[in-house]
């Protein structure tokens, strides 16, 4: 429900997990780094709320798509997340789903 976001929150809600999985595809990461990357990748068009991020992380960990461990960064204790095989499969499935959705909706966009 961000004031500045012009993207429909209904649509985004379905892909927050996908965005987060993307950030750990190539390597482990932690909370702030992930939300920062998401903002950068979208060129500032989408800023994920802290709580949205953390809800998604909890959800993804619960369904086995990611695992977490404690690490140190800049002298601070942080929780790092890494993607699992199941997570990669989920991600791939979501990508396929989006391609299909995009194709369907594109047929109606002038």
């Amino acid at each position, binding site marked *: 429900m961000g004031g500045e976001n012009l993207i429909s929150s209904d649509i985004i809600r379905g892909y927050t997990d996908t965005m987060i999985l993307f950030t750990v595809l190539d390597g482990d990461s932690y*909370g702030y780094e992930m939300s920062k990357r998401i903002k950068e990748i979208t060129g500032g068009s989408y*800023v994920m*709320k*802290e709580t949205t991020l*953390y*809800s998604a992380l*909890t959800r993804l960990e619960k369904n086995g798509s990611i695992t977490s461990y404690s690490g140190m960064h800049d002298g*601070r204790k942080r929780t790092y997340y890494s993607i699992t095989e199941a997570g990669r499969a989920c991600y791939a499935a979501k990508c396929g789903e989006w391609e299909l959705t995009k194709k369907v909706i594109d047929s109606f966009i002038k």
Partner: protein
Amino acid sequence: MDTIMNYIDSMFSGIPENDATRRLRDDITANMTDKYEELVSDGKSENEAVGTVISEFGNIDEVLSEMGISRTAKAKKTASPVRVFVKRNIVSLIARPAAPVALMILLYRLIDDWYWEFRFGIDKTSIALIIICFAAYSIYALLRKAGKEKASVLLTDEDMERLKAHQAKNKKISELVGTAGAIVLAVTIVLSVTGVQIIWYPAGSRLFARIIILFMGFMVFMRNYHDCLDIYMGREPGQFTVFKCTVRFSIYWLTIAGLYNIRAINMLDGDPRFELFMYQFLPVTLLITLAAVFVSYVADSFIKFGKR
């Protein structure tokens, strides 16, 4: 930073302590600290950084329900990080009303001259007063932009969103009012200084004068409304009412009118100006003011502003 810590404290009040919630809290604290530090090193003021971090926080209950945790019933009633965002100081108290006051002086003098002299222009003293007021306000606005106001406490998420929406919306109105006011002021000064007079007496141009004055009156009221909104939104969002705004406006207006007319007390009875003042201008002004206050009081029952 303390503000952020307080915010997190209140967010987590009433939440049972276990490994999961402790970890969540540590992570969130680390995140917000990182974000805050990065914003500050990017050049944002403490205020802006705190505001950004908090407004981008979201709703903690979303995470809790995902984790299957609920707050204790007791905490639900007491947890409320609601309060002031900006501390008022003596400078802002004086400088802040300066802009609407300046506009009101201008408006008053226009009405006065129209009433007595049928002339569109104002005296040099008033021009000086108006310029001083605008200067005071501009300095205040500049200081404010530079972040000299201290952030004391926090708004809730919804309040923060509302404040931002309000500021965005009012930016356009205040810019419009500011520009229009500047134009009217400039024209008035030029006319007064060059001695060019626009006389209303020919019936047609009187209408023109009335339109200008009504427009000015509207602009002045809007400026005052915007100002009041700003103050209350920054302080206690639930406390703003149109009634309070109108009362504030009336106090300024009557004070200005009163001060300008102090000399009227010395006028002789029988002087037609005195008669006009006592039996027309004064009662009409008081009547209109009372009517406006009454209308705003009634209007408030229809406008639920910021009420929770």
